[in-house]
Each structure stands twice: as C-alpha cells, then as structure tokens.
C-alpha cells in the first residue's frame, strides 16, 4: 500500500470546515483556533465565503486569505496559484479551510487533490457544522451541495440543539446521508480534538486487514465448529446457493430501478400514471405480471417507485404482488406441484387479493415522505452517494454514466442486507426445519397455516424456488398451510425485511410486515376452512 502512504508525513495537514451559510463556521473557527493550544502553530486560514462574522486571529499566528464565490467558479487557476504563493511565504503548519455552503465538495477535491497542491497539502479531516434549528429545513430545500458536503465529512458538529429528541432527529437525518457519521456538540472540545487528530487506519488497509482476518477465522473457526457438530459446510453451501441464485435477480432489480430513477422524469410519471388508486393498482398488478423477477428485484424497484411519487398503496401492491404472480414463479409452481393447475391458480388469486388488500390498508396512512428514511430529502437526491441531480444531467452519455453509478450504489446498499439476510436464513435452513415439522404433529389448521407462514418468513427462499420446498412439506401439512407458505413467503421474509431497511423507516416496515401477515393469514384460513382451496 506504499502508494497510499507516499510522503504524507511531509505534507501540510488541511482541515476543512463545511456547512451552510450562517451555519456558524466562522464562529467555530474563531473559538477553536484562538484557544491557546494553537498559539505556537502557524496557521493559514482560507475562506471561500464571507459571512456576517469575520475571522480574527488573536495570537498573530494566523494568516487569512479569502476568495469570493465568483472567483471560485471562474478562476480556479488563480486560486491555486495564490494558495501556493501563500504557502511558500508563510510556511504554515496547518491549513484551515472555511468552505462555501452552496458549492459542491467535489470542487474542493478538484482544487486540492487534482492540482499541484496535492503534493504540498493533504486533506486531513473534514467536519460539518450545522445549526440544529435550521438544518432539517435547509436540507430539504437547497439542492445537492449540502448533502454532498455532509456525505464527505468525517464528523459533524451540531450547534444549539435544544432537546435530546431534536438531537436524535438530526442524527437520523445525517446518518441517512452519511451512515456512521459521528455527531458532537459544539462545546465538547475534548471530543473534537480526539476526532481531529486521531489517525484512523486507511479504509483500504482496513479492508484488507478484515479480509485477511476472515480467511484466518475461517481456518480456525471451521474445524472448531465441525468438532462441535455444527454443520458449517452445509451452511456455507446453502449460503452460496442462495447468493448465486439471488444476485442475478438483484442485479436485474437495481438496473430496472435505476433506469426508472434516471431515465423517467418525475413529471412523466405524475402525468401518465393513473390518478385513481384502483386503476393504479390494476397497472401495478399487470406490471408485476410482466416482470419476471423475484422478491430480490422487486424491493429496489419498489423503493424507486415510492421516490418517484407513485401513491404508496399502489407501490406496495406492486411490491407484494410481483414476486407471487410473475411468470417465472407461475412456471416453477406448476412444475413443482406436477401440473396441478388448482394450486397455481389459487396462488395467483391469493397473491393478487392479498397484495391489493395490503395496499388498501395504506391508503389513508401518513404522507409518503415519512416512509423513506431520508424523509423529504430522499426524494430530492438519491441516498446512495451520487449527488448529481438526475434531472439536471441532460446529455445521454451523462445519463448513462449516472445510471451505472446509481445502479452500483444501489446494488451495494441493498446487497449488504441481502448478504446478512441470506446468512441468517441459511443457518435456519440448515438447523431449523425440524423444529417446525415436529410441532406440526398436533396442530389444527390455523396453527398449521401459522407454522408454515412463520417458516416461509424465516427460511427466506427465493420466490422462484419456494414451490419445490413447499411441495416437500405437502405430506405433513394441509394444503391451506402450504398456500399460506406460497403466498406470504415471497411477500415478506427475513431477507426482504433486511433489504427494505436499506431505505425505509422501521415503523413502516413493522407495519407492513404485520399487515401482510394478518391479511394473508385470515384470507387463507377463511378460504381453506370453507373448503375453498
């Protein structure tokens, strides 16, 4: 990793302060740099904006230069030259930058990482200063520069948070933009120092260390587990089987959903999509029927539909119906149950009815924006790291590039939950089914349906393959219970819940899960006790 280290030690550390106009950046710098800890250190302060307050160094160790926004936009060469000149003149130990709140962070990266400056300076830490009172309001309205700055910050400093709940809310908003960002109160100087001067390992090095650790663990833990009669080999095989099965479908899902996100303007959807919920649901079901994707694919698509402003009930109907009624699933059910059309038709009908009902229960629920974790913000820009506004990129090649990056980001963000969910369910699949089947022996119909639905949830099978498993249980369970398995399993399972949590609030996921379970259970139970199946 030599190329990463280089001669970093010789470089001047650069600390960047980001934040919206009047967010308190200058005040923060005045307070921090005038502390006596900095007395002996020669500092170059570079301001890229002029707020109401001016920076004043009290100890005569700070030299200040500032550039207006106009220069920043038009004469970058001049800025670079001037900074270079100042560095040579003053030989600062540290450089502190007050960055402009409405200019993207990528501009700063261009200045310091892609110019001769990168030989002299190294961006050490980026912090974000936010006014607790205003930040949420500002974030929803001011375009993509600010979220981009937050996403690039190492930690954030919050000023003037009145209550714990406000603080928590801000933490959630920030976490939605930059997962794992740490928040600090403006007066907690000790914590700030720690953050500013702690040398965390380089992420790439950490990555390789963890990789080596996994390999080492594998060789140590596996024999130990084998000795304990825990079937690790089976778990690994099952895990890989499900992953190899799911990843292609997940790819189809993220590609389609990114295509919706990038290529279909919001206005078109608003204009063309049926206004009434009934008609919308019909479109959703037809769409679900036409898409040969399993549940791994329908969740990213669901997310982008909600973001694009499709009514929530319709989007939910789409997400829950697609994995049950699509042609691949129909075909596999048909094969698994040996051409038994009754099962196939029952599965399709139940799938449609249940998903429509689940959708309808959300018809009166709260505003769409509360459902997504990022709130209103999430609809403004994509939560996954590409901050160019989809609507502002107009050239076709630009859109293709954005489409590819968007699909990659979405693949990773949903994929990590897929990996975790798959791992849990592969453990359950390997050791778990016996528990379910043994409790069946004394069960009545309601309990059987319940057991099969819980099993469908826990096993998290891909909807294109669950019919075969269901078939293998059909000797022990009544057909009503099998139907519960076939209808509920594709809609909701551990894997799906995990993947949903990549973009939706916990409250919403729990609500959706409960409603889906109850509706599915009642319908299947009623029909099978009336002899309808």
């Amino acid at each position, binding site marked *: 990793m030599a190329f990463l280290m280089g001669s970093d030690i010789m470089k001047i550390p650069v600390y960047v302060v980001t934040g919206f106009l009047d967010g308190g950046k200058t005040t923060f710098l005045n307070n921090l740099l005038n502390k006596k800890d900095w007395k002996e250190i020669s500092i170059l302060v570079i301001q890229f904006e002029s707020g109401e307050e001016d920076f004043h160094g009290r100890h005569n160790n700070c030299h200040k230069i500032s550039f207006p926004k106009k220069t920043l936009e038009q004469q970058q060469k001049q800025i670079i030259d001037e900074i270079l000149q100042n560095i040579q003149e003053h030989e600062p130990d540290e450089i502190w930058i007050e960055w402009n709140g409405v200019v993207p962070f990528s501009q700063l990266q261009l200045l310091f990482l892609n110019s001769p400056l990168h030989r002299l300076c190294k961006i050490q830490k980026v912090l974000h200063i936010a006014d607790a009172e205003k930040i949420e309001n500002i974030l929803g309205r001011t375009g993509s520069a600010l979220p981009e700055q937050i996403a690039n910050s190492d930690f954030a400093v919050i000023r003037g948070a009145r209550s714990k709940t406000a603080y928590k809310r801000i933490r959630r908003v920030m976490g939605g933009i930059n997962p794992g960002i740490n928040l600090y109160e403006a007066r907690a100087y000790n914590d700030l120092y720690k953050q500013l001067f702690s040398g965390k390992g380089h992420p790439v090095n950490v990555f390789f260390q963890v990789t080596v650790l996994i390999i080492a663990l594998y060789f140590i833990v596996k024999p130990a587990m084998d000795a304990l009669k825990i079937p690790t080999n089976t778990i690994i095989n099952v895990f890989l089987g499900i992953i190899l099965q799911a990843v292609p479908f997940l790819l189809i899902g993220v590609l389609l959903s990114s295509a919706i996100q990038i290529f279909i303007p919001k206005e078109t959807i608003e204009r063309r999509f049926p206004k009434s919920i009934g008609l919308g649901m019909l479109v959703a079901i037809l769409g679900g029927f036409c898409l040969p994707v399993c549940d791994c694919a329908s969740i990213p698509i669901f997310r982008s539909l909600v973001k694009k402003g499709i009514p929530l009930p319709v989007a939910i109907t789409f997400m829950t119906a697609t994995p049950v009624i699509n042609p691949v699933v129909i075909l596999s059910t048909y094969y698994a149950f040996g051409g038994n059309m009754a099962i196939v038709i029952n599965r399709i009908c139940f799938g449609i009815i249940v998903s429509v009902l689940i959708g309808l229960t959300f018809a009166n629920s709260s505003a769409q924006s509360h459902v997504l974790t990022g709130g209103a913000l999430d609809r403004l820009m994509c939560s996954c790291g590409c901050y160019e506004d989809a609507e502002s990129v107009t050239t076709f090649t630009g859109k293709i590039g954005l489409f*590819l990056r968007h699909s990659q980001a979405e693949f990773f963000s949903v994929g990590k939950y897929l990996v975790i969910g798959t791992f849990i369910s592969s453990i359950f699949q390997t050791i778990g089914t016996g528990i379910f089947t043994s409790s069946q022996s004394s069960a009545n119909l309601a309990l059987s349906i319940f057991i099969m639905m819980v099993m469908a949830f826990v096993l998290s099978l891909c909807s294109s393959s669950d019919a075969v498993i269901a078939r293998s249980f059909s000797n022990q369970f009544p057909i009503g219970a099998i139907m519960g398995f076939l209808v509920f399993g594709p809609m909701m399972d551990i894997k799906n819940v995990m993947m949903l949590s990549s973009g939706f609030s916990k409250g919403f996921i729990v609500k959706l899960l409960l409603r889906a379970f109850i509706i599915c259970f009642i319908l299947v139970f009623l029909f099978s006790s009336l002899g309808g199946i």
Partner: protein
Amino acid sequence: MQAKTFNPQVFLEFICYLAFGGLMYYLVSSGKYLNYVTPRMKPYLYFTGVVMAIWACTGLFRLFRPQHKIRSAHCFVLTIPVLFLLLPHGPLSTADLSSNYVGGNALTGVTSNTGSADDPSNSIDTSIPEEEYDALEEEYEVPEEEYSAILPGLDEENKTITVSDDTFGMWLSEIYVNMPRFEGYKITMTGFVFKDVDSFKEDEFVPARLAMSCCVADLAPTGLLCKYDKASELKTDSWVKVEGTLHIVKCQYNDIEYDDPQIFVTKITPAEEVEGYVYPY
C-alpha cells in the same frame, strides 16, 4: 494539472467487480456452479459476469478522480461471497441434509399423495387434468426406433434399462410419466442407500441421488423405491448398484390410492460414489 492522484476506493471496487465477475465466469465455464445452483441459472450467471465487467470498465474512468472520503466496507458485499467460494469446502452429501425424501413423482408430471387426512376437501387434485395427460402422451409418442435414441440406455428388444449416472434424473421422470410402458423391464441404476425411518417398511429402501430443484438449499434424496428382502442389512448412505425388475405397485397414503413404480431387486453390488447432483426438469 498534470499531477493526477489515484482514487483507492474506485480501485478497490474495480478489483471486486473483476473478482466477482471473473469468478462467475469461471464457475459457469468449469461447471462448478452446478454444486450450488441448477443448469437453468447458467444464463443468469453469465449476465452477472457481464454486468460486473461493465461496472469494472466504468470504474476505470474514475480511477484518477480523487476524493477525500474513502469508503471500503460496502465492498464486502462482493468480497464475502468470493471468499466463501474460494475457501475450501466440500459438496453436500445426505448426511448433511435435514430435508425429507422426495419421491420421483414430485419431480415429474404426476402428483400423488397430499392433503390432510381429516379434511378430504383439502387434498390436492390427485390426477392431472385430462388435456394435460393428452399433451404428455403426444409428446412421448415417438416411433420405436427413435425412442431408444432419445432415451440412452434403453434396450427395447431385451426389455432392459441401464440408467447411467448422467441420465438418473431424466430416467426417473420418464419412468413416472410412462409407467405402464416400462412395466416388467429389467433396470439397473446406482445410488446411495436411503431409508426413511418413518415411512419405509423393513424390506424397502431407495437407491437415491440428491436432487436439486433450484439451489443447494433444496437438495433432497430422490429415487425409485426398491423391494429387497435383505434391505435391513444394507448400510445407509453406502453406494450400491441395484439390478431388478420394474413393477407398478398400488400404494395407499392417507386413504388415497396411487400407482408407484418400484424395483423388485434381484442383485445388489457395491458401487463407487457418484459425484454431482441430479437436476429435474
């Protein structure tokens, strides 16, 4: 601006895409993917490889666009499957499985015994719809000479069927679909001794193979039931070559009667273990 710097995150992603995509391609071309999924996944895995290759290429354009905040944790989404695929682990055998025996009928066009005993209305329709049967018949109505060409191992003159290891799954569905045609045929097939304690009688066992209908998660032993006096002497999970005669036997399960093809064993010899799984359809 001649001084370009390097973006380690993009480079890391580039490596991960290449590794994952390359591994997909290797798995398919070497046939190793069959240990995890069925042959039907082949085009999908190629598709995955192609998408990964495209993503890797687009990464190249951004390789020299540096950024301050470097992330690497997300790459584990690709790294963990790659690691698990590369680290040593063996394919599964019956001893590893907890799932139930799936009769050959589950994998073919005929459903048989399902439903709860107490509620007859809950049972699955036990016969295939009429038209369905006709379609199947038509499909299999092939002139006699061509027949053996389609079904390797069939000797119409001597009424024998030799099931090779590669044609196990195919023959299983063939026999279930065209039961009457093969009544009385001599059959030879290889599998491991499988006995389901709950439902098998003393003189019954199955020379089974593991069948994968979708992925390795749904592996289940499958095969034809054998009648053999000394079945209890056979060691479970040992590999045997079974020779015997095919007969249609009336069976009963939960008050429903159905036909089941069974082998009346004449000879059993130990056999080498057969690698690989059986893929129905």
